[in-house]
């Protein structure tokens, strides 16, 4: 059943956000601390557990991957609802602070990534594929025995 996958995803989402809120209260922060990241970890663990027991059927997987595939459209909708006007009209402080910090980050990302590439911590570059590849279709041909 496809809904099992979507329900599992929803349960992981809610549990993760709740834990993130809990951490925020514990350390006295007014924003959710990593709730989405924790939800992702829950989903990874749950999926791994179900796969090992053969309970993660292809239909269940589809209930998760459909939403993963919707990710880019959602991001496009998000882009269309940004406050671009305030960004364009903001004064030099906002513009320079943003551009400067982004530039500094790019340089450090480049530096770190070159280091981990040399040190062989990074995996090989991903081979090119199409944007629309459905990972659920992989599950049917290659059973996961990890």
């Amino acid at each position, binding site marked *: 059943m496809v809904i099992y996958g979507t329900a599992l995803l929803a349960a992981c989402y809610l549990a*993760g956000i709740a834990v993130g809120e809990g951490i925020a209260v514990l350390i006295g922060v007014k*924003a959710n601390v990593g709730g989405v990241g924790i939800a992702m970890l829950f989903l990874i663990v749950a999926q791994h557990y179900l796969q090992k027991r053969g309970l993660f059927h292809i239909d269940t997987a589809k209930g998760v991957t459909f939403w993963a595939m*919707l990710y880019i459209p959602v991001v496009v909708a*998000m882009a*269309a609802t*940004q406050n671009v006007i305030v960004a364009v009209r903001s004064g030099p402080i906002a513009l320079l602070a943003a551009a400067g910090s982004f530039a500094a980050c790019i340089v450090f990302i480049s530096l770190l*990534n070159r280091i981990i*590439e040399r040190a062989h911590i990074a995996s090989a570059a991903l081979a090119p594929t199409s944007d629309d590849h459905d990972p659920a279709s992989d599950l049917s041909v290659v059973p996961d025995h990890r």
Partner: protein
Amino acid sequence: MFPLLEKTIHEAPLVTAFAFVGAVIWISNQLAHHLTRGRIAGSAIAVLAGLALAFVGGALTGKTKGLADLSLFGGLALMGGAMMRDFTIVATASEVHVDEAKKAGWLGFLALVLGTILPFIVGVGVAFAFGHRDPVTLTTIGAGAITYIVGPITGAAIGASSDVIALSIATGVVKAIMVMIFTPVFARFMRLNNPQAAMVFGGLAGTVSGVSAGLAATDRRLVPYGALVATFHTGFGCLLGPSILFLAVKALFG
């Protein structure tokens, strides 16, 4: 005919948003394929188109939610809101290879620390260069350079005025949009082609919206790795902003 169509659209805002975004992505893919011969990813063009549409919406209505402020496109606010964004990000975790993510956990943390401190220093420096000397103002603008959520939360916690908080939000929004647009441009320079690099990127570039859109436009398989780290960014910034970072600024300029 027209009022009939309008009534239908008003009664189904989310469905309208699905159809509309689908059309935007289809046009973007056609442009990418025929105009740039696939050199620029269709999703990169689609994100840019989204931002351009947001500008149009904002210019027409004078409000803050881009195209979603036009009642015809109200559904975009739900489709592109935090709930759907986070729900679909969590779903991408189903594509994570655990071994790849484990390899770079410590790297993600290092990137997170750098991604919080570097923008803050730059933000404080710029504010200082423009003549601000008040530690509260400096800290709030610096925090805005981390993300547009860290800025106002830090500002509110240390008692910044509302115009300073607005400035810090603007700083964060500009940064998020820059990350969306320029990530695919600088992807090669940043060596952004493997899961570990995406985790470093997620920690350093920060803002979930910027990272998620930037990676989507670069290679969607990298999204979950970047997002996994980036989602800790705002919480981490909100933890450090009003505490250690504010105290450091106060010690330096106070």
